């Protein structure tokens, strides 16, 4: 600071109006002409920059997608690098987290070395001086954590710990002995006596050391003393070696924004000032009906509303004082928001070629809100209050206006007066300290540690030339933390991939044969949470068969239930439904339905009134009187959640719509629409859907008497992310109605006639039944049981008994993951436990959703039936023998399955590796805002992504697809479909194929398919799933579950433990 009194004076002077403010135009007279030329290019620049913003829309319909979607054009690792540079996010897990995985066997040493060799290629054997090969050096760096820190930390560490007195614990004794031995020779030969005199460098090196160690008794030193001496000497050698080496060129952090430079130069952080206003304003602007007062002039757009709010104000905060005047000036000059934006850019001195970068960084300063504005503007016509077009531009105009004012104020606080904003960046850049210096201590300490691990003695290092030292340091710095983590990550993936492919290869040979005459067939969503359900069902009833297709079952519709107010889309987010389906109460119960609807309306109005009035002046008074009554639900809800919800349900039964309803599914008039008559599907449309799904499933013959189709969803309390737990193929909706509609269509005899023409003969004795599986409380509800033919009641009774048993077992397997569930729970107890979780206000983990997903199998169930996949695998049914030569069916399946599964896998990946920046942090302080998303606390950026509680048990791996087809067929699909190609080629997903004829595996690597060499043919064999997973919380390995006497040539089951599991 130049002058001690300046800051105080500036603070005082700020208040006097005559201080000219370089943020306003009054003084510097930039004319409109100088920036008007930029206006036309701005919307495009903003649109480009908007791609970097999170693309999550309103949280009420949560769709999983790749968090780094903006970089999908790049290969995975390059995209991570770009992502880190843009968002400041972590690309991989932290190094010590990987090391922990190494310690508990989720990564093996051979995985590390295999990946390292593969990664280095021909460079693996490159020699680093005479200190070994590059491979050895890197392996040592991977195996042992290298401590590092700031210079001050390093100095403290050297001076205060035993770092120079004892070898690190991990160093093997023989290496220690070798280093000490060589040092002894060197010391006795060269350092003491004549050698030193001959070499002044040596003299300097050893100066004072012998005195410190009392060298007159050197021949009687014990080993500990020699070790200490060796390490001291080693440290000195390392320091002198790295001394004077040039710094590695380093990418400077891109600081396009004035704010970053101002902060780096020691000025105030202006972002909190500006964000505080904008967070609140965005919240009010985007509010979907929470606040009692709507923002005045909201319909006139972001800019207008903001200007109207502040034009006549007299702000108290110093930096905002000029805001009203500035707004009035802009209005008087007749500038549109875009022109004002262009003007701000000009005033801030942002040249045209830098606009996009600057805009992107500015938008990312409050990325969550900016992203939501963009989503509400472009992609949310279905919401109550979408944002008008151009909102993001106007937001940016407002933001830059505020930033200009804040910068002017911040500049003054820093003591920079009398310069224009346009010059600010140049001025600050010269002020900011450039940390381009190489730290001798840190470099020396890295070599010092490596020398111990590799057994280099001080003498060997002493002989290195300066050039060799430079190479060594370069090698070490080249293999930076990010690089090491990348290798670890690849090894992590390799371990799981090999295990999975080995397991598939081994299991194919012993999978039980599918039943010849299945007694019922069960169709679910491909969701990995249904994997265990199917497995248990097949265990309970070996004579049943299961299938899976994307959980909207081809029925893309807007749906409105009998008790729903609005239509909701139930289909993947990329599909725009054309059909509308309404649930209606049967005619005979319609009177009661109307009465109940009226009661519900009255109750609903009353409780909404109470809800809002309890926050007001007089309403609150009343609320306080009835308040003590609130203690009853409060205590029971918290202490007895399951009982309370049961009670509430039984009361609710009196006002719920009557139980017998039907879908208004058949359309009699064109075109499809929400009005009566236009709702639903025509018979040919239905037939097309049915034929298509059956073809996808490979279910074209051998129909059983009962076919159950189950959609899925999840219900939980106190969970703003509830929608994320629902069916991904229904845009975060519940898939029950889809399953019901599909069953309805497939039962129609006219539809069956048309389907027969398409070559699929559904016997008249086959009945389809829709169902809904709640993956949180593991309940299973059947639809349209009143239409079940009498002839099928016995079949249903059998099937439902098996399903009941299966859901108990499924709940039991799920409970092994919940720390609060006792291992000794019975299946019935497990069901009670998961039911409580779903109804518990205080439960932050109602279920684990897609956490741990890692695999997607596409093919016949025949080869995966009985394989224990630990709820980690999406399972998609596909029968290559029924596909045509162009793989039409496979392409159809994959174009949905690969993007959807990749989206889920990648969102989990990124939310796990950086929960704070790419996920939404911890769930505990979340605060629902504008009915659109969550903030942390009362004012923060909107937090898209997944919470820590959702991802904590996830292993961040890219999903591995194992598809039953030939390499050539898969290659042709890659050629044909752009999205699949991009995800696969750029390695956002891993891919392997299994040949339908011979169970041989190929995996996709560097752009082509290579035969997969099976690592190990051993796959544990057990009788029941529970024998495998019992008593273990962590991830489990693969196993074959084969009931006695049902294996094809399988050896007798053994009791082999899962890797790492206690015996």
């Amino acid at each position, binding site marked *: 600071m130049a002058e001690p009194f300046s800051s105080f004076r500036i603070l005082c002077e700020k208040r006097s109006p005559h201080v000219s403010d370089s943020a306003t135009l009054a003084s510097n007279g930039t004319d409109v002409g100088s920036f008007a030329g930029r206006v036309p290019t701005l919307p495009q620049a903003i649109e480009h920059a908007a791609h970097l913003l999170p693309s999550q829309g309103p949280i009420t319909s949560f769709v999983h997608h790749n968090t780094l979607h903006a970089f999908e054009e790049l290969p995975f690792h390059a995209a991570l690098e770009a992502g880190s540079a843009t968002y400041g996010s972590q690309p991989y897990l932290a190094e010590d987290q990987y090391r922990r995985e190494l310690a508990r066997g989720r990564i093996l040493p051979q995985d590390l070395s295999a990946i390292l060799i593969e990664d280095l290629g021909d460079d693996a054997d490159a020699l680093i001086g005479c200190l070994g090969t590059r491979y050895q050096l890197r392996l040592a760096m991977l195996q042992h954590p290298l401590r590092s820190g700031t210079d001050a930390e390093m100095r403290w560490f050297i001076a205060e710990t035993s770092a120079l007195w004892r070898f690190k614990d991990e160093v093997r004794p023989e290496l220690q002995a070798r280093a000490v031995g060589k040092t002894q020779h060197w010391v006795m030969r060269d350092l003491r006596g004549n050698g030193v005199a001959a070499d002044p460098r040596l003299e300097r090196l050893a100066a004072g050391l012998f005195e410190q160690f009392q060298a007159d008794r050197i021949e009687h030193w014990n080993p500990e003393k020699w070790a200490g001496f060796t390490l001291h000497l080693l440290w000195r050698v390392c320091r002198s070696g790295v001394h004077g080496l040039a710094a590695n060129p380093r990418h400077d952090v891109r600081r396009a924004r004035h704010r970053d430079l101002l902060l780096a130069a020691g000025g105030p952080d202006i972002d909190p000032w500006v964000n505080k206003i904008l967070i609140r304003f965005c919240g*009010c602007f985007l509010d979907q009906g929470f606040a009692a007062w709507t923002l005045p002039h909201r319909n006139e757009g972001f800019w207008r509303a903001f200007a109207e709010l502040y034009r006549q104000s007299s702000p108290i905060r110093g930096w905002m004082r000029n805001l009203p005047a500035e707004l009035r000036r802009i209005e008087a000059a007749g500038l549109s928001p875009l022109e004002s934006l262009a003007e701000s850019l000009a005033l801030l001195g942002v040249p045209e070629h830098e606009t996009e970068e600057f805009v992107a960084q500015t938008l990312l300063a409050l990325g969550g809100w900016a992203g939501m504005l963009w989503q509400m503007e472009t992609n949310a016509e279905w919401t109550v209050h979408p944002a008008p077009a151009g909102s993001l531009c106007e937001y940016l105009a407002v933001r830059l206006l505020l930033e200009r004012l804040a910068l002017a104020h911040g500049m003054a606080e820093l003591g920079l007066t009398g310069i224009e904003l346009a010059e600010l960046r140049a001025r600050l850049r010269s002020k900011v300290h450039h940390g381009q210096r190489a730290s001798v201590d840190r470099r020396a300490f890295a070599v010092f540690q490596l020398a111990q691990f590799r057994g280099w003695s001080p003498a060997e290092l002493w002989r290195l030339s300066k050039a060799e030292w430079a190479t060594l340091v370069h090698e070490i710095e080249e293999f930076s933390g990010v690089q090491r983590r990348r290798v670890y990550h690849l090894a992590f993936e390799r371990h799981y991939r090999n295990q999975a492919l080995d397991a598939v290869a081994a299991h194919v040979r012993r999978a039980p044969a599918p039943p010849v005459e299945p007694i019922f067939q069960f169709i679910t969503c491909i969701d990995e949470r249904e994997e265990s359900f199917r497995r248990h069902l097949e265990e309970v009833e070996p004579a049943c068969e299961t299938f899976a297709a994307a959980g909207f079952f081809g029925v893309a519709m807007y749906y409105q239930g009998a008790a729903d107010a609005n239509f909701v889309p139930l289909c993947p987010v990329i599909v725009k439904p054309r059909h509308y389906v309404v649930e209606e109460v049967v005619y005979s119960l319609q009177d009661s339905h109307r009465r109940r609807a009226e009661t519900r309306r009255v109750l609903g109005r009353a409780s909404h009134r109470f809800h809002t009035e309890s926050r007001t002046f007089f309403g*609150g008074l009343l609320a306080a009187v009835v*308040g003590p009554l609130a203690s009853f639900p409060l205590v029971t809800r918290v202490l007895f959640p399951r009982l309370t919800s049961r009670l509430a349900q039984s009361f609710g039964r009196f006002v719920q719509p009557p139980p017998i309803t039907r879908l208004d599914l058949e359309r009699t008039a064109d075109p499809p629409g929400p009005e009566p008559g236009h709702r639903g599907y025509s018979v040919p449309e239905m037939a097309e859907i049915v034929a298509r799904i059956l073809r996808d499933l490979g279910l074209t013959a051998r129909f059983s008497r009962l076919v159950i189709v189950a959609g899925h969803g999840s219900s939980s309390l106190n969970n703003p992310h509830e929608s994320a737990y629902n069916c991904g193929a229904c845009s975060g909706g519940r898939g029950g109605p889809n399953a019901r509609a599909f069953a309805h269509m497939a039962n129609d005899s006219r539809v069956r006639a048309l389907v027969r023409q398409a070559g699929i003969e559904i016997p008249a004795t086959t009945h389809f039944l829709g169902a809904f599986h709640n993956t949180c409380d593991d309940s299973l509800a059947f639809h349209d049981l009143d239409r079940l033919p009498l002839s099928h009641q016995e079949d249903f009774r059998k099937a439902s008994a098996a399903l009941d048993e299966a859901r108990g077992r499924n709940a039991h397997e799920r409970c092994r993951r919940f720390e609060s569930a006792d291992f000794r729970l019975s299946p019935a107890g497990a069901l009670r436990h998961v039911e409580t979780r779903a109804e518990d206000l205080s439960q932050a983990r109602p279920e684990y959703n897609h956490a741990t997903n890692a695999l997607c199998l596409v093919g016949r169930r025949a080869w995966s039936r009985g394989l224990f996949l630990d709820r980690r695998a999406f399972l998609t049914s596909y029968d290559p023998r029924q596909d045509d030569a162009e793989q039409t069916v496979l392409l159809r399946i994959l174009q949905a399955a690969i993007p959807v599964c990749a989206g889920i896998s990648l969102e989990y990946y990124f939310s796990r590796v950086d929960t704070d920046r790419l996920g939404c942090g911890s769930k505990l302080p979340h605060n629902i805002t504008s009915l659109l998303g969550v903030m942390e606390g009362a004012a923060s950026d909107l937090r898209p992504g997944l919470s820590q509680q959702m991802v904590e048990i996830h292993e961040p791996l890219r999903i591995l697809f194992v598809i039953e087809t030939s390499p050539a067929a898969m290659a042709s699909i890659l050629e044909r479909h752009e999205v699949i190609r991009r995800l696969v080629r750029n390695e956002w997903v891993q891919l392997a194929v299994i040949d339908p004829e011979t169970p041989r595996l190929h995996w996709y690597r560097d752009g082509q398919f290579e035969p997969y060499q099976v690592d190990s043919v051993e796959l544990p064999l057990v009788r029941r799933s529970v024998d495998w997973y019992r008593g273990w919380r962590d991830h489990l390995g693969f196993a074959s579950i084969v009931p006695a006497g049902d294996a094809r040539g399988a050896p007798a089951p053994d009791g082999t433990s899962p890797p790492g599991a206690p015996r």
Partner: protein
Amino acid sequence: MTYETIVALLGYCVILCPAVLLALLGLAQLAGRPLSERSTAQATEAAVLLGLTAAIGMLALMLMRGTRYVPIEFGNLVFIPEQHFHFHLKLIFDRLSVPFLILSYALVGTVGAFANRYLHREQGYRRFFLFYAIFLLGMVVASLAGTIETLFLGWELVGLSSALLVAYFHERAAPVVNGQRIWSVYRVADAAFLIAAVALHHATGEGDFAGLMGTGPWPGGHAALSSQQALGIGLLLVAAAAGKSGLIPFSGWLPRAMEGPTPSSAVFYGALSVHLGALLLLRVSPILDLSLTLSAVVVVLGLATALFAALTVRVQADVKSALAYASLTQVGLITAEIGLGLRYIPLIHIIGHACLRTLQLLRAPTLLRDYHRLENAIGAHLPGEHDPWGRWLPPRMREWLYRFSFERGYFDAWLDEYVIRPFVALFRWCDAAERRWTTLLSGGKGRESDQVIAAHEEEPL
């Protein structure tokens, strides 16, 4: 066993339960052997249940015997006769403290059960329950306080735990900043409180409420002060209450308190500690009775806060801020009721409001689901502009009101600009002056710390 022993036993039990819990959780961590989640939960549950049972037992006994005033003496904690200094620890059970005590136990206990599951597997689980124990102890001591210094002790414990809980996520900046802000507001309130306590001692020679207010049990009693003294001391106490309860102009801290985990926001700021100011005013209500001016100040302050908060709540788009200001509306009203000379009504109001608000805050994350259900029941999108009055105001007035509410009454800005800024500027000036002098005297670089490079500027290897 005689009646007196039973009463004494119950009284000790009420206060010892949270104290022992705090000692257990705290010492275990100090000794480096923190309790497991399970044992923490069990200890908490046991302490709360036992304390609650004792409190209810006490209530039952008092009702049976018709006693309205049960003091429990602990004697002087600190006593220095030469300095005329004593710290007198005394608890009283009467019509004010018993309901408040039972309310505290019930709500804190429920929230403890809630937090036990909500914070499962959380890194700061033990820290949370440690602060929780401090809070519980503070609430119990403050409710039962029989002397002004005892009340101050409880008051401080509540303040400390509240600020620490707001800053619970201390790895992020915002919670720490907001926690600190709350801490500083509390300091101001505490200072006012402390001065009032000293003044009270000075005027009456002791801080015992019984001595101060005559012998009649609450809410009877007459303070042995002159009207002038009452006004002076009363104003200080009102300032203390205003800081603690977030009355204007300190209201800005209440939404900031929402940085902590949902359960702590719910019980601590929404329900209990925000009512502590009202408790203080109720406890010293005989002083209010002495001075009409003082009562008027309390009424005006309460009503102004209630009006301000009722306006501000209307523009909040996020559920937790909305609930914070909704709480404030009621706290303002309660304060006004106290100023109007009512005693039982504000007490009932506090209990009702605390229960309701706790439930609403605990359910806050379920808002989307609740709204969806209501929408389905009503059969249409929820009415957005649910406000019967707004329509009658002229547009200019409405805009002004909207801006006023949007800016939250400008109170935070005002404090920042006219209190904090000059304060900081003064100290910066002192700092600069010191630097000049040291540079001059040392004849060179005045401060070694200037050369230290911030750690974040160096990159790890």
